[in-house]
């Protein structure tokens, strides 16, 4: 990433010069390695974040002086690798995100509810919303917040995510986390493997809240509403995977089954499987859509040794089971 960082140093210098600001850019972790085409994809998001930091984050020298900071702003680029994640951080020591101004703007744009209680993290996330802007003055350097949403979208397309941490008058850090190569972005997923009938199915761990072995006293059936499971006082709908996936097998007693609680369409739903086989990283291949144009419940095929297992799309499963329609 060294070349990329050196490029960002130059971008920061140019932008600062144009704005009458002084910036000192340092970097560490330049030896961190990332797939070449991922580095290419990162150029635009990083240029955007660097411009944004210099333009909106760092104060003009006189304001910094008045706040007791050195006149020259500091921009730090950091890269590190933690197991299967490469983390790139862009931190400035500027004014930090202005909670009040972000909230005011978000309410004005209909992105937030007036008077609601938002955590700092939620407020920070608001600036990633499409078309969001906080700069009071229009500048031609980084636009007005336009594009942060594009940065977030690019990252999620690469299988990564964007985090923001900020403290008033101390600065703002944008943290990018992404898989080290594209292959691992669409090829490996962490999943809960369950058995239904004679086949295994994978539920992406991202969707899974918990696993429950239902006890008889927690089960309830309601006319027209199907089976329900009492999870710490809330009754959650149960969907039998065997039925939704049309598996040709005798259904088990619920008390002999395992319930995988998932979140689908903002709702908690329990997917009922015969047994739990484990949680593991699986290699995933795409399902040939030209052969299966009508299949919505499958996200891809996991390779489990010689065999394959369908990776389920929990939203589509919930919709196929009638759970989402019921909610609407």
């Amino acid at each position, binding site marked *: 990433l060294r070349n990329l960082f050196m490029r960002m140093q130059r971008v920061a210098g140019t932008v600062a010069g144009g704005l009458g600001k002084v910036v000192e850019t340092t970097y560490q972790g330049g030896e961190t390695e990332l797939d070449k085409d991922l580095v290419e994809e990162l150029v635009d998001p990083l240029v955007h974040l660097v411009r944004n930091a210099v333009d909106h984050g760092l104060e003009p020298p006189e304001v910094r002086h008045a706040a007791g900071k050195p006149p020259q702003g500091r921009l730090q680029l950091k890269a590190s690798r933690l197991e299967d994640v490469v983390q790139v951080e862009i931190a400035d020591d500027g004014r930090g995100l202005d909670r009040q101004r972000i909230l005011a703007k978000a309410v004005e744009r209909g992105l937030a509810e007036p008077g609601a209680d938002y955590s700092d993290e939620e407020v920070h996330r608001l600036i990633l919303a499409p078309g969001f802007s906080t700069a009071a003055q229009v500048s031609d350097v980084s636009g007005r917040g336009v594009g942060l949403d594009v940065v977030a979208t690019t990252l999620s397309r690469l299988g990564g995510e964007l985090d923001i941490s900020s403290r008033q008058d101390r600065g703002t850090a944008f943290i990018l986390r992404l898989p080290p190569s594209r292959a691992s972005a669409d090829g490996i997923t962490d999943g809960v493997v369950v058995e239904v009938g004679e*086949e295994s199915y994978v539920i992406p761990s991202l969707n899974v809240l918990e696993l429950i072995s239902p006890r008889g006293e927690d089960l309830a059936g309601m006319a027209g509403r199907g089976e329900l499971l009492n999870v710490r006082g809330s009754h959650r709908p149960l969907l039998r995977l065997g*039925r*939704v*996936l*049309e*598996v040709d097998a005798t259904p088990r007693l619920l008390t002999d089954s395992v319930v995988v609680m998932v979140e689908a369409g903002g709702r908690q739903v329990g997917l009922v499987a015969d047994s739990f086989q484990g949680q593991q990283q699986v*290699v995933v*291949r*795409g*399902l*040939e859509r*030209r*052969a*299966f*144009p*009508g*299949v*919505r*419940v*499958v996200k891809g*095929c996991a*390779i489990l040794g*010689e*065999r*394959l*297992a*369908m990776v389920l799309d929990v939203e589509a499963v919930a919709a*196929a089971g009638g759970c989402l329609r019921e909610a609407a």
Partner: protein
Amino acid sequence: MQYRGGASLVTFTVGDQEYAVNSSRVREITGRHPLTRVPHAPASLPGVMNLRGGVVPVMDLARCLSLQASGSCPEQNILIVEVAHPEGDWQLGLLVREVLDVRETDSDRPQPVPELGSRAANFTAGLLRTGEGNTLRLLDLEALVRHLDEPKEDQHA
């Protein structure tokens, strides 16, 4: 026998009928692999197979062509063929009973299919004569695949 500018065909049996595909469309021939069922897929696609780490859909030809597969002799082989598509060719496995051989035809112009109206006829591009005077049904792979786009009637019970 003299070669007269015809096509090269891979011939095989489905049920008890003889069919052929152009050999340029055949990637490989393999024995039966375990199939993994794809939920909500049409019955003509019993599953997908793991071919050296790739996922290939497999079609039950006997079922597609509405031919009785006699219980005593289940379809044992899989023909991996290349299906043409505007967005790029893709691979499909065809469950067949037996792969016979590779033959040359007299002409690359198939005769029209007389038995119009039957399901099998819809997926037959034409009849071809072999050098030995046999008649072969040439499978129309794209027509076979096109029927997969038709909506399934009982999508969700």
